[in-house]
């Protein structure tokens, strides 16, 4: 079964190194705030060429780029607001722990999972 295992690409970094990285927002991501102050993120995603082809054939206009939306809850908004391009992941966690009065380990898990999700969607990058 080793043949079918996904190959790991790129160098792995340690936990300490990961916490020192600085998360930076994607400049192409749009941000709107609702009445409750919750953030709605809009971000471009590339449409697969064959899907774009079908859209064109069906009469739609597709330049190969679509817009996706992500509604953040109160905690997601709090973390998003902490991403100023200066604070490291560790500092974001510390600030979030203090703001929400959470256990540090719990805040670490929650924030890192959230940042990973944002990274997967291309909403942030790590510097």
């Amino acid at each position: 079964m080793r043949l079918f295992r996904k190959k790991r690409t790129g160098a792995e970094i340690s936990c300490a190194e990961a916490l020192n990285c600085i998360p930076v927002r994607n400049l192409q991501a749009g941000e709107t705030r609702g009445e409750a102050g919750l953030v709605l993120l809009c971000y471009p995603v590339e449409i697969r060429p064959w899907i774009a082809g079908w859209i064109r054939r069906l009469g739609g206009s597709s330049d190969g780029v679509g817009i996706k939306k992500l509604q953040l809850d109160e905690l997601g908004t709090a973390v998003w607001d902490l991403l100023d391009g200066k604070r490291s992941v560790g500092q974001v966690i510390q600030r979030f722990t203090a703001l929400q009065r959470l256990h540090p380990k719990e805040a670490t898990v929650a924030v890192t999972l959230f940042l990973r999700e944002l990274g997967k969607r291309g909403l942030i990058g790590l510097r």
Partner: protein
Amino acid sequence: MSWGEIAWNGVRFSTPELWEVAKIGPRYLLLAYQGEPALEIKWEKIKGRFSHQTALKRMNSLHKNAVQESPLPEEWVKVLGDFDVMGFTWQAAARGGRGAILYCPACGNAILIQFFGNLSGSSYKTCRRVLASFQDHSDDNRVRWSLFDIRAEIPAEYRLLRYRFEAGRFEMHFGSKRQRITLYRWGPASALLGSGDLFAFAAKTIRIHRNEWHPLTCTGHHAVQWEKAVLGGLWARCWERMIGKPHFQWFRLWHLVGKNRLLGVGANGDKTFPSELLDSICTQYETL
């Protein structure tokens, strides 16, 4: 350096607060410091005789003969006076460690406790303090549970059935025969309650209509409680048992405003729980 207590499934000890719990099993704990393993503890109840040599042989077969018997420092032996002790060391390519196999003649527990890394003067003292605080049984009939930011005491007859520690939600389920007790911890309360109140949260989380909860005060905090016991005769009770519904169900949730947490205790079973027992569990259940 500040220290905190960890209590899990019968064992209790103190560690520096910077040592974080990295892995949990029903009878297993791994603590890490800055992402690297620092302390590992395994324990098991032994039926019959226990041999340190056999335990060491088993460890050696698992670790390719890397483990060696080695005398423990005098100070360590002194603080582990209640146990039958055998020391060991091991060395692998990247790291090494030192530990002890303990046997408690009073309760029949065999414990493997080991510290990772090359121990220097200050870490020897730290390890000594950890070992000095180590207990594997309590004299009263209650078991303390203290992990992350929660602490509770549960009667010893209630065994740990399952647990879940997720960001925002902790659950620990205990059982004795057909009686069940569950501890909950949610956080951060400000986000979970939102614009609603504790009734709305209880109704949504436990799935019991908000009108069925009644307010009360628990340990000085605003709380809500729900209780249901099957009334009626033998037939009604038999019917409930046939459809798998417990005879008695009870929940209490309370809001610790200062800590921004919500705590909850649930109980269900074929017999009604004494209210003193449930009250004492709630009183001793706290967030640190």
